[in-house]
């Protein structure tokens, strides 16, 4: 098992390297220049000075090498536009996106998996229809629209929840949570819907297996048959879906952070791309990519733990 984990971790490095290459070429090819980002009434001389000051006129591969060496030294560099170190921005923004994604994952998993199991076990009954309907709606509604409808309903019409803003968890838990409910639900809905549907089909398939009949023939109560024998086998495809979805979650966070004005990484990445502030874009996307890769590796490891067959056979 350990050998497999080491191999997976080692594989992360080339992937991260490739991410940085793709990222850098994308930013290089973007038309327009960070200098213009400062404002439309910027004089030509200032643009020239700005380029020299930030070494933008150096050839691309030189800039890339500088960036990589700094990155390895842990120096995330400085934003082109504001000149402030990017690490401060990350310290403030990363916890927000992390909390948003974790919350929506928890909201999703805590709701989705039991709902999926319930509708699989009680197939073709009312709870089954209700869950499948909600899951279907969850998948079809575009997240940003769901968020905006929620703002319209809960903030404007009913006035129960604030429409924007963020309060650190350390400052006041209640304030933080009231501001995070809607974003977490808006982001989590699509995630929950997919996980529910996946859980339901995984469970239906598992309950058809022979070893479930054996378990029943051994006189085990229904509860044990489901929560011990069926769950662990069904978890394998469920965990894969959760893994695949987390990658998409960060993408979704970008939109939700804009709808609810949360100071997260997603929104900052969009702004920085539009302003061509490439050091910020590179730093933030590398972090997000790193997290997604770590999560994928974790998912593979969890796979190995759940399913002994995998740790033996060398399935990539």
């Amino acid at each position, binding site marked *: 098992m350990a050998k497999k984990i080491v191999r997976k971790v080692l594989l992360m490095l080339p992937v991260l390297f490739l*991410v940085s290459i*793709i990222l850098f070429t994308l930013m290089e090819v973007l038309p327009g220049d960070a200098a213009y980002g400062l404002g439309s009434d910027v004089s030509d001389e200032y643009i020239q000075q700005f380029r020299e000051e930030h070494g933008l006129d150096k050839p691309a591969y030189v800039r890339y090498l500088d960036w990589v060496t700094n990155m390895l030294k842990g120096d995330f560099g400085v934003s082109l536009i504001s000149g402030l170190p990017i690490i401060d921005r990350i310290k403030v923004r990363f916890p927000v996106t992390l909390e948003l994604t974790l919350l929506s994952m928890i909201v999703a998993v805590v709701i989705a998996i039991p709902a999926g199991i319930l509708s699989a076990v009680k197939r073709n009954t009312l709870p089954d229809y209700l869950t499948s309907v909600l899951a279907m709606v969850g998948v079809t509604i575009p997240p940003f629209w769901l968020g905006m409808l929620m703002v319209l309903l809960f903030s404007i019409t009913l006035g129960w929840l604030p429409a924007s803003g963020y309060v650190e968890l350390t400052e006041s838990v209640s304030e933080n949570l009231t501001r995070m409910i809607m974003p977490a639900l808006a982001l989590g809905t699509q995630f929950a819907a997919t996980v529910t549907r996946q859980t339901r089909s995984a469970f239906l398939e598992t309950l058809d297996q022979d070893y479930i009949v054996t378990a029943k023939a051994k006189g085990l109560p229904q509860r044990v048959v489901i929560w011990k024998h069926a769950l662990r086998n069904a978890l394998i495809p469920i965990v894969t879906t959760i893994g695949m979805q987390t*990658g998409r979650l960060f993408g979704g966070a970008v939109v939700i952070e804009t709808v609810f004005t949360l100071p997260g990484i*997603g929104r900052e990445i969009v702004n920085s791309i539009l302003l061509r502030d490439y050091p910020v874009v590179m730093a933030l*996307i590398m972090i*997000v990519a790193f997290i997604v890769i770590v999560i994928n590796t974790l998912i593979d490891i969890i796979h190995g733990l759940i399913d002994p067959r995998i740790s033996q056979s060398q399935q990539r």
Partner: protein
Amino acid sequence: MKYESNFRKTVKKFFRRKLAVVGLVICLVMLFVAIMGPSLSSYSPSETVVEDRYQPPSSVHLFGTDDLGRDMFARILDGARITVAVGVGSTCIALVAGTLLGLLAGFFGGVFDTVISCFMDALWAFPAIILALAINTVLGPSLLNIFIAIGVVYIPDFFRIVRSRTITIRELEYVIGARAIGQNSISILWHYVLPNMSSTLIVQTTLCCAKAVIAEASLSFLGLGVPLPMASWGSMLKSGYPLLERAPWLSLFPGICIMLLVLGLNFLGDGLRDALDVRIRDD
């Protein structure tokens, strides 16, 4: 039991599922609307009539009019063409590229496989919207570029599925048998491996169309969806939002259309998955 061709049995299984049929109907209607486009309505989608702006849905204007007095029903029809095109276009790109790479990587393995897999993992690690946003900005907004921008995001999905299926199929006897009788690799892939995963691919394609439609809507929320004179349902959704109080129909109708299309695609996808899955008995 008289012998039924496998195809007819699948079709019969498909049509026994009510929801799958509903899904198929919705998709066919959407396709028809997309192909016919604004010609279905007497108004032209871009004709601005300043006097009758913000008219609620009436017999004259089925879906009301927008802030420039354009007939919403015509715009929805026009939007249908663009939204369906984005859904289908980007899915084709993802399908072709993902499947091709998946087959090659899965079948040949070795260094080629590791390199492509790393590249795909790298693409995968990018937050989806950001990749689409960056590609869209680089290539500049045009319909084709939107296809590419959204398509590239879903290539890893197809790649992973095709690759893992190819690895399992490659070990099966009849593939080894085919190789034994001197078939070259390409024809093996084409005749033996690909048909074997056709059912999963069909299901994945329908579901990917649904995801692409929603991805386009999110992109247009960030202001980088389909270039503005063109309006997909997603961009209508966004531009109609501030007017939700003043003219709710501007945002609600595109929203309902998107949800209906995605719903149809999902029902179709589920129906196909059950119908094509040999294991599921027809209870």
